[in-house]
């Protein structure tokens, strides 16, 4: 329960609830309550109009102005960064990087290198000596051949992927007679 002094400081007697009035009546009469309230209110008003001189504000503002303002870099560096949230984020990121399943890379065959040997015979004819000096010159050319096929990484799962769609209908490519294909006859006659 609130003390009577608190009630007297905050509320007029008529503003009290019935319960509060009963509480007050148990402690003191209404006249005493009114006197107490007048006393506390007078106490609150005491020296209420006392104000600091304007010169005090001016002095303090001058003192504040003399303080060296730190550089922008120092102000940024001075910000307190909470350590635990930063460590938590780093741990979560590391765990995610470690445990995240890497996407299957297609297995490509090793690049094929073909070595071609070019042999050139250079003849040097010296007519005075009636002789031909032949020198053999060989050059190795390494040819890189791009892989033409890739192993499908989902091959183990039994999925076959074709590079091209199968023909929409089965054409007889061999042994077809023009007589059996009137469309072809038309094409040729046109």
């Amino acid at each position, binding site marked *: 329960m609130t003390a009577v002094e608190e009630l007297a400081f905050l509320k007029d007697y008529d503003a009290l609830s019935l319960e509060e009035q009963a509480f007050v009546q148990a402690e003191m009469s209404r006249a005493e309550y009114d006197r107490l309230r007048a006393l506390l209110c007078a106490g609150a008003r005491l020296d209420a109009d006392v104000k600091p001189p304007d010169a005090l504000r001016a002095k303090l*503002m001058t*003192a*504040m102005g003399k303080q060296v303002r730190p550089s922008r870099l120092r102000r940024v560096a001075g910000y307190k960064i909470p350590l635990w949230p930063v460590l938590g984020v780093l741990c979560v990121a590391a765990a995610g990087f470690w445990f995240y399943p890497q996407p299957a890379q297609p297995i490509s065959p090793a690049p094929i290198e073909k070595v071609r040997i070019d042999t050139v015979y250079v003849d040097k004819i010296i007519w005075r000596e009636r002789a031909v000096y032949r020198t053999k010159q060989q050059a190795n050319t390494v040819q890189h051949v791009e892989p033409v096929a890739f192993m499908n990484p989902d091959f183990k799962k039994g999925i076959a992927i074709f590079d091209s769609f199968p023909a929409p209908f089965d054409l007889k490519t061999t042994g077809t007679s023009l007589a059996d294909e009137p469309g072809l006859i038309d094409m040729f006659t046109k």
Partner: protein
Amino acid sequence: MFKINYVQLPDEALMQRIAQRDERAFAALYDRYGARIYRYFYRMLWQDAGKAEDFAQDLFLKIIEKPHLYNPDHSFRTWIYAVALNMCKNEYRRKVPALQELDTAFPEPQEYFIPESLDRPLLEAALRTAIENLSESHRQCFVLRYQEELTVPEIAEIVGCPSGTVKSRLHHAVRQIADKVSFLQS
């Protein structure tokens, strides 16, 4: 669009900006607390306007020069009053020998002039004397609660004792004052 409204910023945010030497933040804080702190010193230091000004200036200079002394985990209002209270205590300690000498030379009158009718200036004068005659701990609690209008938990934090003790001190302070002023009101 990005202009900061300092009037609406809480005390703690203003203190953070003061630590970054933001003059407008200090101006806003002074406008909020300057008069209250000055009045508090005036009430606690024997209505001495000169002392109140010196002490208020010292307190706000502390805020300017050492803003890091404030712990933002606590309420700024209780912090500033706690600092002010400690400054008053130091002044009491410094003053006590001189006051004791005065007391022996001029014993404090226990009876007041009884007027014919209730007069507000007389009531205020008697009230002021009655408040001054309270013990230090009772006066602290009375001024903080009924003049500075702080809550009991805030006073408990400032004074550094349980809320129950503050309530008890308030009760006794009001009783003592009422007893001394009752002749005016009767």
